[in-house]
């Protein structure tokens, strides 16, 4: 298996009111293509910071993040925006869909940013929403969808630009157990069938059970790294 992400001596220190907080402490990690990896740990252990660094939406204090051969810590702000657009899919804890667009338009939007033709956007958004079981709700606005449905749309949006991997920050945190189960099944299905790499932060035991690798963070460093399946 080829390594799609490699973290080398990654450190992130926040400086607030003269105090230093080490959020990520000298982390070394490799993620292979097709992994279904959970990053777990107690609150404040650095899960979200690590995902932000992996996603290129935050800059490390030191260390390297190599994504498919590119050290993204060396990219400028605008290069990073472009890199994220074409290489990384994001699923956020609180869905973060655009409320004035329909489910289908939300999925299409990221492809619009990629300047993909209208016909391709239509085709792919329909395919993805059908795959996640929302074919009949694709013209509904987020406010008309349940939390679980909104998060599924967020997954479809993350997959729309054909990213190298998907980062999901506590994707089930706001969902009831049935919706969480349903979302996980979809993510797992996409991982198995289409070999899409998923990395998600969580402290939800249901999610941890599904993960095939669990990286445990404690005080910003890797406390445990277990392959379960």
């Amino acid at each position, binding site marked *: 298996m080829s390594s799609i992400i490699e973290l080398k001596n990654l450190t992130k220190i926040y400086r607030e009111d003269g105090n230093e907080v080490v959020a990520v402490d000298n982390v070394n990690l490799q993620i292979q293509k097709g992994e279904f990896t959970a990053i777990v740990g107690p609150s404040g252990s650095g899960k979200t910071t690590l995902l932000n660094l992996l996603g290129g*939406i*935050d800059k490390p204090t030191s260390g390297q993040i190599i994504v498919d051969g590119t050290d993204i810590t060396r990219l400028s702000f*605008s290069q990073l*925006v*472009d890199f994220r657009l074409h290489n990384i899919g994001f699923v956020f804890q609180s869905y*973060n869909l*655009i409320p004035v667009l329909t489910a289908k338009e939300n999925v299409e939007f*990221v492809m619009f940013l990629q300047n993909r033709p209208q016909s391709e956007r239509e085709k792919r958004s329909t395919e993805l929403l059908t795959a996640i079981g929302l074919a009949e709700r694709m013209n509904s606005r987020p406010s008309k969808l349940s939390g679980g449905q909104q998060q599924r749309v967020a997954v479809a949006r993350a997959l729309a630009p054909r990213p190298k991997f998907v980062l999901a920050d506590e994707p089930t945190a706001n969902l009831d157990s049935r919706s969480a189960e349903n979302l996980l099944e979809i993510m797992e299905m996409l991982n198995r069938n289409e070999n899409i790499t998923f990395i998600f932060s969580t402290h939800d035991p249901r999610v941890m059970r599904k993960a095939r690798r669990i990286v445990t963070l404690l005080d910003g460093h890797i406390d445990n790294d277990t392959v379960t399946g």
Partner: protein
Amino acid sequence: MIRLAWKNIWRNPTRSLIILVAIAIGVISGSVFTAFYNGMIYQRIDDAIANETSNIQIHAPSYLENKEITDTIANIHKILPLLDTITTLKSYSLRFKTMSMLSSANNNSGIVLIGIDPIQEKKTTNIWKHIVQGQYLSSEKKNTLLIGEKLANKLKIKLRSKVVLTLQDTKGNLISAAFRVSGIYNTGNTGFDERVVYATWHDIKNLFPDSTLLIHEIAIALQNDKHTSNYAEKLKISLPFADVKTWKELYPEVGLMADYTQYLQLIYMTIIFLALSFGIINTMLMAVMERTRELGMLMAIGMKRTKIFQMITYETIMLMGSGTIVGLFLTYIIIQILSTTGINLASFAKGLNQMGLSAMVYPVLTLREYLQTIELVLVAGFLSSLIPARRALKLTPSEALRKQ
């Protein structure tokens, strides 16, 4: 992007509607005021051209400065064929014109005496349309005058009253003759009505038995004022021995008012949009702050800063543009109604007439002024978007996503 910006405006319909209504009211007030002022000035210009100066006048070079009776136009036989070549010529009138004294049994007054061919003058100016008592001049009736109502009141004379006209002859001697008032006119311009008296060429010629007809002024009326400058320039080149002037040069104060109308709307609208801009900036800042997390998400998934700037600029321009379109549409309806009914300022008539302005105002707003408002909105919208857009661009995705 435009569709998204439009949908974003209506996330908070109440807030957007309030600012939209404020913009519409601003546009209506600025535009209707401009139209009102335009109506007043255009009417003054139309009256000045139609009743007083015509579009172009020709004099002897020293006439306007000295107003001597001997400053007559030379080489008229060379001028008239040239006038006939003007394709948009309506008509022209050759005038005797000098300062005189008109006396009644009760009073006397300094006047400008204009000697005319009644038929030709009728084709050139509208003074005949403003007769309120009696009749227009006729070559058949001897020694008759057409005077303004204001002058008639001043001299305390009526229709068919006898008056004595006193003026200098070409040798500087005073000559007098008795006339009767055949008609009284009222143009609504107090200054003009009090000063200008018309007589026929025929009667004037009788006062100067030893001279040929003295022509001091040629008033040229064109079918459309937009050709005035063009033809005046051509005549100036062709007639180096004469003094050719447009109505704007003859009445610089009216010309100034006409020029001012071009900038009036720009000034008013700039002030109005400047005031409204603060409300719009505030609205857009609130919109940006409310969407901090969403903007963070957009940046995270790969929306470039230029696109975010573009989205906020579109939203601001669309918000202002919507209010402006509603405002201009209502302005159009209001002006259509008022341009038919007119605005009657009868209670201010005396003051307005003294300034040469009519008490009945018909508002006018030109296409250029409608378009100018739209141009201004685009500029104001863009400028108003800069502060909210800057606020949005200062966000970093990780910080914005952390905002609750």
